[in-house]
């Protein structure tokens, strides 16, 4: 059942908040005299904050379709709205601190950022392929601009160019896949498509469509072999943008990946929290292989990187691989593990990028050597980064470990031992390059002399990011409850 347009409006407050802020920012941008005024940042903060608040407070309308079924309001969507809004908020803070953006037009930047946020909101709740495509482009197009935001820099332009071409191609292929699905089922509603596919159609076109759609989502979450754009874009983009891209759109990509595949190619089974394949497309195994390949490639290539931003880009590819483990199992426990992982990943990955911003502010670049001696130059930042990196490795008592435990656990529970083993070995490999940064920070003499001063706000932000990373590693019961309830709603 779905609500009409007017009746849907009360459930659409987060999107309204973001939209309003974007509009206000445009006004500021056009009217404001000082393009570097912090007003824009403040406005973005307030807007994102209120979006976060509204998203959090959204009444749990279980599986309610809004706007005649264009979007759906369920716990799953709410979860991703909160998550992406939170990521955006942190990125706003990060952007304020980042040297790369201080001499750029502020309002414009936040307009793009919040547009992406709006796109992510819609993407995580889209239930119609039209809306899905629209949301995906809403995420993508401002992202292209954000990646190229450092207009004077070659690398930024190059990144942006590659991103736009790659993104356009991927979405083109995806939309072709959509067209096939539409042709097979005659509907743009994904639930209808799912039901129609379940009643049996020819296998090959369905497979072709599935593969083509996979390109679009795979590009969004940067899964191998659709990941090629991401290292280049991550390296060329401003650091906060990289941080943002590696968390926000990736999370939203997972949201739509899960929603789309679980609705279209699978259906809930009798037992609680189980799905079964409803079409002839055996995508779980496909994605299991992609998951293994993704994490392996991400980790292996990350080893040889000398640019921390690029290193973290590959690491985020690897993490996408880990998260895909939860996706392939056709259980809500697996999805729960993904959601949990996304939460902890948000904190640890943004945290790591935050420290990169702080270091780059001092050295104007983010080569590994810039981090040497950070342990003495800025102990707090260095310790925080160490925490984030070890959390990313998945070592207790940090939250990343718990995230991995949930993922591994469900994989093992389903008997996909090989995947668990590959993932486990991958964590060992990942230690090597994460520890390399730690080693440089603590075990080597500084290249840059002098203390690296970290201002008060970044300190607080670091603390805000470190605390959950530590806390969720020691006590994560509430978090897993949230993840659990978010998954449960999706099924209805």
């Amino acid at each position, binding site marked *: 059942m779905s609500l009409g347009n007017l009746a849907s409006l009360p459930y659409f407050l987060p999107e309204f908040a973001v939209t309003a802020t974007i509009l206000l920012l445009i006004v500021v941008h056009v009217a404001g005299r000082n393009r570097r005024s912090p007003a824009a940042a403040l406005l973005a903060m307030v807007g994102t904050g209120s979006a976060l608040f509204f998203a959090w407070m959204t009444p749990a309308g279980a599986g309610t379709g809004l706007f005649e079924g264009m979007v759906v309001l369920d716990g799953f969507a709410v979860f991703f709205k909160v998550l992406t809004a939170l990521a955006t908020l942190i990125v706003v803070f990060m952007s304020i601190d980042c040297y790369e953006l201080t001499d750029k037009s502020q309002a414009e930047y936040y307009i793009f950022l919040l547009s992406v946020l709006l796109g992510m909101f819609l993407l995580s709740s889209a239930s119609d392929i039209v809306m899905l495509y629209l949301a995906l482009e809403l995420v993508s197009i401002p992202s292209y601009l954000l990646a190229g935001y450092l207009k004077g820099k070659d690398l930024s332009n190059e990144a942006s160019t590659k991103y736009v071409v790659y993104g356009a191609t991927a979405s083109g292929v995806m939309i072709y896949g959509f067209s096939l699905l539409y042709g097979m089922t005659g509907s743009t509603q994904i639930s209808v498509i799912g039901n129609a596919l379940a009643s049996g159609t020819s296998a090959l076109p369905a497979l072709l469509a599935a593969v083509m759609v996979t390109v679009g989502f795979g590009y969004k979450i940067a899964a191998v072999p659709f990941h090629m754009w991401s290292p280049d874009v991550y390296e060329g983009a401003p650091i906060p943008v990289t941080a943002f891209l590696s968390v926000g759109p990736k999370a939203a990509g997972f949201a739509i990946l899960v929603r789309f595949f679980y609705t279209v190619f699978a259906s809930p089974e009798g037992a609680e929290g189980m799905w079964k394949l409803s079409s002839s497309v055996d995508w779980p195994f496909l994605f299991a292989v992609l998951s293994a390949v993704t994490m392996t490639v991400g980790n292996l290539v990350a080893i040889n990187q000398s640019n921390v931003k690029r290193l973290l880009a590959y690491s985020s590819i690897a993490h996408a691989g880990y998260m895909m483990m939860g996706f392939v199992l056709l259980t809500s426990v697996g999805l729960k593990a993904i959601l949990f992982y996304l939460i902890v990943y948000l904190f640890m990955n943004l945290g790591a990028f935050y420290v990169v911003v702080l270091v780059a502010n001092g050295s104007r670049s983010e080569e590994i050597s810039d981090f040497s001696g950070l342990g003495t130059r800025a102990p707090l930042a260095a310790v925080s980064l160490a925490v984030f990196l070890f959390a990313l490795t998945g*070592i207790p008592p940090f939250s990343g470990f718990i995230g991995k435990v949930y993922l591994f656990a469900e994989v093992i529970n389903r008997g996909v031992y090989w995947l668990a083993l590959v993932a486990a070995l991958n964590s060992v490999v990942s230690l090597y390059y994460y520890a390399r940064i730690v*080693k440089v920070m603590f075990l080597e003499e500084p290249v840059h002399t002098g203390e690296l001063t970290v201002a008060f706000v970044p300190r607080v932000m670091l603390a805000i990011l470190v605390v959950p990373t530590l806390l969720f590693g020691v*006590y994560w019961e509430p978090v897993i409850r949230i993840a659990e309830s978010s998954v449960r709603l999706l099924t209805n």
Partner: protein
Amino acid sequence: MDFINSHILSLMTFLPLAGAAVILMLPGGRDELVKTVAAVASFLPVPLAVQLWFTYDRSVAGVNVASQFQFVEHTRWIPSINVEYFLGADGISMPMIILTAIISFLAVIGSWNIEKQIKGYMALLLLLETGMMGVFCALDFFLFYVFWEVMLLPMYFLIGIWGGPRREYAAIKFFLYTLLGSVLMLLVMLALYFNTTDPETGGHTFNMLHYMQQSTHNEWLRGFDIRILMFLGLFIGFAIKVPLFPFHTWLPDAHVEAPTAISVILAGILLKMGTYGLMRISFPMFPDVTKWFVIPMAVLGAINIVYGALCAMAQSDLKKLVAYSSVSHMGFCLLGMAALTPAGMVGAAFQMFSHGMITAMLFFLVGVVYDRAHHRDIDGFGGLGAVVPVYTFYITVAFFASLGLPGFSGFVAEAMVFIGSFDVFRTIVMISASGIIIVAAFHLWALQRVFLGPLNPKYAQLEEINAREMFCLSPLALMTLLLGVYPMPVLNLMNASLVRLVDVVNMVI
């Protein structure tokens, strides 16, 4: 007092952590204060260990019977997946807990001359103690694993920052190696979790004791073949820690590069975790697989004994020699355990305790000479016995204790291992027993090259061992001697449990 009594294990585990927190909050530049706080924080578990010693009921076994564990603390930690905060002690863990308390304290005292970033050093050392203590107290597998991994980080930094010239290499090697072992353990742990239910709640559980109670079901873990895989996964994890040939190559590097006190802890306690893990986890959870696997284990033990000793003989670095001697000595633990006889099992456990003290002494002593001469090249010394008689006395005691001279605890342990395992694997034990010759040879050879013979004039002014260093060594030497003369005080602690363990594995119970 009640609080102390009912939370004694928690206190022992977390007091050092609290100390670390306090140290981190101290203002910079107050090095003496930092050391004092560290000493106090690491000392506090010692009286608690004494308290444990006096209140521990030696007549009950524990191992796989939950009601027989003592000083138990049992609360829910993460209810949704039934992770429990479950601490308790039995005869397998008691000696290790006490050893940890003592060695950690001595290690802090032994680190008094560290000058570089003392604050970080002490904080990490105390964090390390928390991890080690936790491993020995934990009865919930998840908790165990967390503590197990918690040790890695401080160890990595302690070797990596305060170590010798190749410290970075050694640190990352240690880290990667052990992480490799522990991820395998993690996978096995998860597999166990999903195949075990808590009889009370019906949910899956990480409670080790529940695992053990299921272990006799033939179809547990989907049959014997899967159990073999699980066992091997755990075994590799533990073997890396022990370290067993061929997983031992991290050890010489880590030892050589680590600062003295860290080597002490590494050899004195960390290595024991591997064998402790086998006793606590592998054996009672997989009794049938254990029996299936005894021959390979004994062979590995024998290889360790002989191979380690021969490698030790080839070394020219005194610390590396001691490190390889640890490899050799830990082989005894494995050999004894594999025999699955009371004498062998107790011998192995006693070897863990005894080797903890002896090797701690040895590393302290190597550190003493390194502090003064700034090298450890065995051939670079000569005739030191004439210059530093007291130091020579201590090292002689330690060396002879290490080579298994009767009167020292090492002999009792090794003899029990031999006695306990001979009937089970005659040839293997005969081969291992030849190790006693090689062990004697390399110890005496090293002793002679460094301390005996004509004096190397370069070291005519070598400084004698000082009071602080003797303070670290004397308790260990004394305990080694006393336990060598009369081992029952420690054996009584573990007898009941280990005999039960043997019975459990032999499926008598």
